[in-house]
């Protein structure tokens, strides 16, 4: 997103220093003239029908959700005069616990992105929803005889039961239609909720569960609580095998770099480490001498 006109940050080559000073002097002088005008008449535009939950002039706070990889994270939105201005985590939501990810924070920028579609477009012509629905209807009718053999729906992964139900209805009508779900970046993550606050030893294989994960906020909290030395008899330990450095890796006792296709190898070895590690005396902060979880030869083999 670029808020300035293109080229605005470049110094124009045909503008000398003197010329620039002359122009900026004139600008300052003219800016002062602005004080000599009186206020123009402004408008007050009330609603035609008052939304009951709104008090004009007061910010409205409401709970909503943003998704990461298809999974919802609870957020609280502050909105002024119908325009959301701030997103915070929802303390009552299990996947947020009052925190937000950087992506949830950036959702606001997304909302006001000038490149965001403002109307329905047909090619490069503005169109209307009614026209769109009519065209879709025509296209779907043509698919009726074949049972929808020509229909493909592409989607990012999602967990919305409503959308799921709607797609089921569609599939009943067009049994031969196909729905393909694909996420270009984030890896497939198990929706299972592990309780990391109870884990003593955590082995993460190519899993950036403290950052790039739908439940990262919750896991970071749980993980942190298991690491508070004055509340826990023993701090938990985290071992990570990962192909690139991640937040999770840098938080761990030890991270080794391994191509992800070696994960099964690491996993089979990890059982041994876990047993080994759970027999070790509790770690004391500041005196941490983490065990080498792999021998040098093992590391090389990965």
């Amino acid at each position, binding site marked *: 997103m670029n808020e300035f006109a293109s080229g605005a940050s470049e110094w124009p080559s045909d503008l000398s220093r003197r010329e620039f000073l002359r122009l900026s002097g004139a600008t300052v002088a003219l800016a002062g003239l602005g004080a000599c005008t*009186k*206020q123009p*008449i*402004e*408008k*007050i*535009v*009330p*609603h*035609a*029908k*008052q939304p009951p939950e709104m*008090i*004009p*002039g*007061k910010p409205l706070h409401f709970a909503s959700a943003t998704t990461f990889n298809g999974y919802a994270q609870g957020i609280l939105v502050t909105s002024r005069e119908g325009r959301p201005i701030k997103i915070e985590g929802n303390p009552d939501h299990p996947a947020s616990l009052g925190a937000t990810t950087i992506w949830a924070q950036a959702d606001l920028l997304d909302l006001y992105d000038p490149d965001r579609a403002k109307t329905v477009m047909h090619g490069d012509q503005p169109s209307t929803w009614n026209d769109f629905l009519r065209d879709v209807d025509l296209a779907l009718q043509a698919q009726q005889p074949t049972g929808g053999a020509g229909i493909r729906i592409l989607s990012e992964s999602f967990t919305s039961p409503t959308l799921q139900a709607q797609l089921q209805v569609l599939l009943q009508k067009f049994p031969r239609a196909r729905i393909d779900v694909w996420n270009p970046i984030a890896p497939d993550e198990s929706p299972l909720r592990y309780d990391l606050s109870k884990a003593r030893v955590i082995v993460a294989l190519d899993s950036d569960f403290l950052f790039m994960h739908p439940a990262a906020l919750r896991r970071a909290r749980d993980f942190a609580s298991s690491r508070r030395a004055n509340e826990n008899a023993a701090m938990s330990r985290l071992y990570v095998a990962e192909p690139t450095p991640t937040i999770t890796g840098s938080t761990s006792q030890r991270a080794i770099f391994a191509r992800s296709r070696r994960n099964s190898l690491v996993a089979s070895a990890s059982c041994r480490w876990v047993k080994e590690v759970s027999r070790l005396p509790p770690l004391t902060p500041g005196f941490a001498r983490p065990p080498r979880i792999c021998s040098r030869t093992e590391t090389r083999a990965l």
Partner: protein
Amino acid sequence: MAQLFSPRANIYSRVLIVGVLILIGGAGWATSAIFWSPSTTYVNVPLDQPVPFSHKHHVGDDGIDCRYCHTSVEKSRFAGMPTSETCMSCHSQIFPDAPVLAPVRQSFATNTPLKWNRVYDLPDYVWFDHSIHAAKGIGCSTCHGRVDQMPVTWRTTTLYMKWCLDCHREPQKFVRPRDKVFDMAWEPPRDQHAQGAKLVAAHKIDISGRLTNCGSCHQ
């Protein structure tokens, strides 16, 4: 060496000095006249509105409470403006076909808001809040005048900084009992000075000087 100035130069110089003084004074007077003139302050200048709404009829004659239309005046910075729905709550029965009300009916039917011309308008760098003034016993009529007698709404005060400060320095001159805030006919009693001081204490109005801090109004 010849005389540089003839005796007449004395007269010229006096005329010049007096002339310049008059010019400066005149310029000052003209500036102040423009500054305080209704065309700059909009005081007593009725504005055109999309519907010729009359507070005189609705408040003065029919006795409708301010809060029926300006719903958020006790809760929010913004006093709130009646929605077209609010007008229609009566005008679907009273004058349902009156031509002057056509814009209201159209707004209600198409769900597009009416656009009123702002009568009281502070610059955007000033922070003002209705709820605190209503809660501390500053009545509508102190700032907006006898709205109930206005067939069209006009400004009764300049909204200049001096005007705000005159009250923020001495709120006891203007404060009234809380149940009189919406009373258009309230006049300061003869012993306002003593009454006001009592109310300032009763309403816990902050007279520590914080009200005249620049930061109160220029946040």
